[in-house]
């Protein structure tokens, strides 16, 4: 009895640690939200509410309009997804459905390399090599623009898109494909009418996660988008410098006094980003849950 109890004690401690670690994810999300609110909410007392929704971001003179930053993030993200979706989803379909084995074995690690490239390296290369190229090719005043940011962000979103979408396509049972092929469909008809629709929730998740990736990227956009806090209006905005929420925080937080108005507003920007990413991931997560529930229903 005693020996049993002695052996049990360390085990209980270990199991308590495991349990605590399991709960910690919830704790951390809570802590992040708490500290963003704690440092960000005072901004609403210091800056008039409608000023935060102004179209001018010029902190030195006390203009804290968030709209140009939100607009900058949206322009760059939309551009990135317009580029990333055809390439990312095309690559995913190619890897999952068409590629011979050797091509798959070659492509998958390469996409993983892209996922591993530090954003600052891409930003650096974008700045010194790509932006000058964009400027000459398009004959615009500067290559440091929303377009350059979108191209690099597409590169950062593609690995997420490819791997999640490919998993979704892989998960489609082979019997679906066999049935379509047996009915006389071509391989492409099978992919387009059967496999992709069957995997659509996963593909949607992939796109959402790619959007999340693009919204949150910091260093690359800070280095290549030119960082002009202007309202991006019209299609021309793609070819002009913009400034995103992430880049604003990264560029300005180092220079503000702790506890100042500007400091609080930057935390508010962080709060907006947190809410954006929360919504995007909630949507992606909801899709996953829905899919799992349906799978469970089908199996039960």
């Amino acid at each position, binding site marked *: 009895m005693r020996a049993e109890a002695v052996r049990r004690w360390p085990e209980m401690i270990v199991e308590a640690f*495991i349990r605590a670690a399991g709960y910690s994810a919830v704790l*951390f999300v809570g802590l992040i939200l708490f500290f963003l609110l704690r440092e960000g909410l005072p901004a609403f007392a210091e800056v008039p509410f409608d000023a935060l929704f102004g179209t001018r971001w010029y902190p030195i003179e006390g203009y804290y309009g968030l709209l140009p930053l939100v607009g900058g993030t949206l322009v760059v993200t939309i551009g990135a997804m317009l580029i990333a979706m055809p390439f990312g989803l095309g*690559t995913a*379909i190619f890897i999952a459905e068409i590629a011979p084995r050797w091509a798959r074995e070659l492509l998958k690690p390469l996409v993983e390399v892209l996922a591993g490239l530090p954003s600052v390296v891409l930003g650096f290369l974008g700045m010194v090599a790509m932006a000058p190229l964009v400027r000459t090719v398009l004959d615009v005043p500067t290559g440091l623009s929303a377009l350059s940011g979108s191209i690099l962000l597409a590169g950062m979103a593609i690995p997420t898109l490819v791997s999640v979408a490919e998993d979704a396509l892989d998960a489609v049972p082979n019997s679906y494909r066999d049935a379509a092929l047996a009915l006389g469909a071509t391989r492409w008809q099978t992919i387009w009418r059967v496999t992709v629709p069957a995997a659509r929730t996963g593909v949607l998740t992939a796109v959402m996660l790619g959007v999340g990736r693009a919204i949150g990227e910091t260093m690359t956009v800070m280095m290549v988008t030119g960082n002009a806090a202007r309202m991006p209006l019209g299609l021309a905005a793609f070819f002009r410098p913009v400034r995103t929420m992430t880049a604003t925080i990264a560029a300005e937080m180092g220079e503000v006094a702790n506890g100042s108005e500007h400091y609080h507003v930057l935390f508010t920007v962080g709060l907006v980003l947190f809410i954006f990413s929360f919504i995007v991931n909630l949507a992606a997560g909801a899709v996953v849950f829905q899919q799992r529930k349906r799978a469970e229903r089908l199996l039960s």
Partner: protein
Amino acid sequence: MPPRERTQHLIFAALTLAAVLTVAPIVLVVGYIAWLGLPAIRWEFLSAMPREGMRAGGIWPAIVGTLYLTLGTAVVAVPLGVAAAVYLSEYAPDNAFTRAIRLAIINLAGIPSVVYGLFGLGLFVLFLRLSTSIAAGSLTLAIMTLPVIISTSEVALRAVPQSFRLVSFSLGGTRWQTIWRVVLPQALPGILTGVILGLERAAGETAPILFTAAAFFLPRLPDSALDPTMALPYHLFVISTQVPGMPIHLQYGTALVLLVFVLSMNLLATVIRSRARARRQW
């Protein structure tokens, strides 16, 4: 050729092109940086302190700093992440709270890195008074890395067949003995892969350490975990945007060192994974 087969040929060609155009730039980027960075790589560049306002000398303190930050991240994130994965795969009941944990992990994975930086500034640097330091930076990076480690480890743990656990239970093993002696060893390669991929991300990140750990320039190496540090990604950012007249080959050299650091971790993860797959007994 019937029209629908022609369509298929066209579309398959387009998809192949999409895949080629997606991976070609990756090869190009790595090759380009290697080509322009290699001339800068000398023993002095890797082992000396920066001189003349960083325009000469080496990047030794940045290399050491990134090693410290990566190790610090590992010390915090690995035990916590693996334990959380064990909880989710071996203990967690199927209820609303477990679903909340999963949702929290998904959300942690999606929070922008710069927001982690703000959080680290608020909690570790200011509230816990760790100041701008290796400790504050490592803790911030650890929380950012956690979701990667948890989700990959959980997949690895769940892949261990249920029969392994049942055999251990039937021989009188307790739950923890079963996990420690049977499940964890079987899942180890998968867990290692996840850990390395998570740390790879931490090593390459700049935004989370901007306000929590990174120093523009330090004349000497950090003495303790409470000192600020230089780091490779931040150093690359600094010398490519904040230092006028910086020789371009030193910028490419720094980018190359960072790339080699990160990609060798990537390679290690790939090797572990493929070897484990070949050896697996189930």
